[in-house]
């Protein structure tokens, strides 16, 4: 059997809709099937990344209609990197959530498996498709499944968080649709490579209007200020593994959409400055909001928004070094923030009212989990020798090369805020007096393995960053090289049909 990019979409979708039937055979199946599918996704990623290294890209034509007319899937070093990251995170999150609850509620498990696999399909679809309307459809799949997962638990305020997400999401999808319509009237095509080729024909004012509509639309998934009102509520009300999936999967797809549209489709000078300003505002507001949170998951959510602001700043600087740093940051954010959400939600299960002040003494009660949480906290604020240090260093050097002194000052100042609120939690866990005795919810062994894997990655990448910088450099080259993307799509004599 030849592995092609379409497997990314077909296999999880098929499995998602097969779960209601398979559950009749054995009630353990809805737990195991997602894991098998995620593992297959990793195999696809490995095979396709080898082909990308060999040929430069992999593209697939769907239903025999060639690129400008039909929908095509294309995997470049950039999208391949993100897709591999998402596949890997999907598998680790499955490992974490397998037997997350001891009690089996088959109906709940079934719908959780379906929604989660569809969310991952949608996120991968956004990244590998070459057609702008197809991208919109996948974005809507991600939004609807993310809303459903947010409101998954009946006893929490999930429905409220979900409704808030839905209002913002529904509004943004209308704007994206309007942007696609305006773009179609101007260039007469939906294929992203062809749009990019014909973009110079569009008048400047029209171009700016369309770009603003797109940025608002995708800014919501990418947690850009002021469109991120949904994020803290959704993160804090969603089940623990879903919060990790938001940080590791959904946000990555949203940022991809933003970057693909700004870098490949449009060539407006001001767009990059806009990214820097939007990122800066997002980062500063989010980090200061994180400082005054008492709920741990809300604090992590605001910190996640702040990190995405930093990613936007790095993309906005726009040089090759900066884009490379932004990709490194995205990788780190996926790994570290997922680890923080995973260990954080276990800590939350064991605290009385989910606030930071009830975490005292956790360092003794749950030594392994507390250790991993501290590791994640040290890594995300950028202490050496963890992986977060390198990405922050690369962002700062990229900014220094462009002589953006104010920007460097802002990033460093915000880092101090970050250190304050993360260290407050860590010191509470280790150095505060133990206040109350409550029944301890012990995490399962596979959850520990999943968190151990992420912790090991943080350490290994921190000590040997060269392991992934090669891939990241290729990806950064690809983002900035618009001409070869167009060439891949339109003149492809595809190595894999």
């Amino acid at each position, binding site marked *: 059997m030849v592995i092609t990019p379409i497997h990314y979409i077909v296999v999880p979708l098929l499995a998602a809709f097969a779960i209601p039937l398979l559950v009749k055979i054995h009630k353990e199946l809805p737990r195991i099937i997602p894991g098998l599918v995620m593992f297959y996704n990793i195999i696809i990623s490995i095979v396709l990344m080898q082909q990308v290294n060999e040929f430069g890209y992999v593209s697939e034509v769907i239903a025999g209609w060639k690129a400008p007319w039909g929908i095509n899937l294309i995997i470049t070093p950039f999208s391949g990197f993100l897709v591999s990251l998402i596949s890997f995170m999907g598998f680790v999150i499955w490992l974490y959530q397998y037997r997350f609850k001891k009690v089996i509620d088959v109906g709940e498990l079934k719908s959780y498996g379906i929604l989660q696999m569809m969310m991952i399909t949608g996120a991968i679809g956004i990244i590998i498709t070459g057609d702008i*309307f197809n991208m919109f*459809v996948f974005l*809507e799949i991600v*939004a*609807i499944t993310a*809303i*459903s997962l947010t*409101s998954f638990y*009946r006893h929490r*305020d999930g*429905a*409220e*968080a*979900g*409704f*808030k997400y*839905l*209002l913002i*999401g*529904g*509004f943004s*999808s*209308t704007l994206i*649709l*309007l942007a*696609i*319509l305006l773009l*179609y*009237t101007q260039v007469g095509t*939906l294929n992203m490579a062809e749009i990019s080729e014909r973009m110079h024909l569009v008048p400047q004012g029209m171009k700016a209007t369309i770009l603003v509509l797109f940025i608002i639309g995708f800014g919501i998934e990418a947690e850009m200020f002021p469109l991120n009102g949904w994020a803290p*509520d959704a993160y804090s*009300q969603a089940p623990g593994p879903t919060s990790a999936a938001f940080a590791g999967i959904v946000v990555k797809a949203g940022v991809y959409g933003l970057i693909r549209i700004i870098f490949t489709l449009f060539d407006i000078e001001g767009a990059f400055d806009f990214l820097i300003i939007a990122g800066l505002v997002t980062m500063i507001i989010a980090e200061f909001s994180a400082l005054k949170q008492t709920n741990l998951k809300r604090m992590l959510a605001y910190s996640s928004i702040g990190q995405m602001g930093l990613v936007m700043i790095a993309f906005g600087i726009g040089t090759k070094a900066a884009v490379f740093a932004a990709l490194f940051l995205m990788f780190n954010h996926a790994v570290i923030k997922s680890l923080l959400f995973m260990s954080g939600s276990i800590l939350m299960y064991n605290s009385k009212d989910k606030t930071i002040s009830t975490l005292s003494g956790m360092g003794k009660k749950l030594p392994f989990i507390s250790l991993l949480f501290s590791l994640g906290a040290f890594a995300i604020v950028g202490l050496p020798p963890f992986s977060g240090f390198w990405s922050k260093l690369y962002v700062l050097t990229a900014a220094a090369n462009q002589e953006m002194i104010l920007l460097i000052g802002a990033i460093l100042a915000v880092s101090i805020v970050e250190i304050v609120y993360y260290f407050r939690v860590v010191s509470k866990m280790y150095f505060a007096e133990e206040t109350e005795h409550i029944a301890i919810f012990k995490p399962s062994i596979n959850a520990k393995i999943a968190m151990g894997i992420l912790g090991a990655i943080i350490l290994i990448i921190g000590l040997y960053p060269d392991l992934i910088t090669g891939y990241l450099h290729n990806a950064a080259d690809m983002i900035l090289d618009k001409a070869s993307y167009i060439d891949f799509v339109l003149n492809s004599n595809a190595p894999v049909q």
Partner: protein
Amino acid sequence: MQQEFHEIFVKYHEIITLGVYGTAIGLMLIGLYAVLMKKNLVKIVIGLSIMDAGLHLLFIGIGYVQGGTAPIFSPGYEDAGDRMVDPVPQALVLTAIVIGFAVTAVALSLIIRLYKHHHTAKIDQIKSLKW
């Protein structure tokens, strides 16, 4: 009868086009008003749907070609290549309608759950989370 209709259409073409665009944009504004100003959750969702409907109408209106035929080569229409109605916006609208349906369904089910939990559908009385 058909001939008459066609003549009327050609005569008032510009007004009709303007009417379609105006209706579409008007619907979108009505929907936006409902989303922003109404306090009832159900009315907000109705507003979202109206906004979508306006956008769909705009799609169809833009794809229309005056005096156009269906985009199929059939006997008697061999030379219709340059006066066919653009089929792409119609295909997009079909997809968008399905997506809108799904969003509305999710929204209504969330409203049911919110109503069971809070015993009200007023948005300003539901504030367990900070809005």
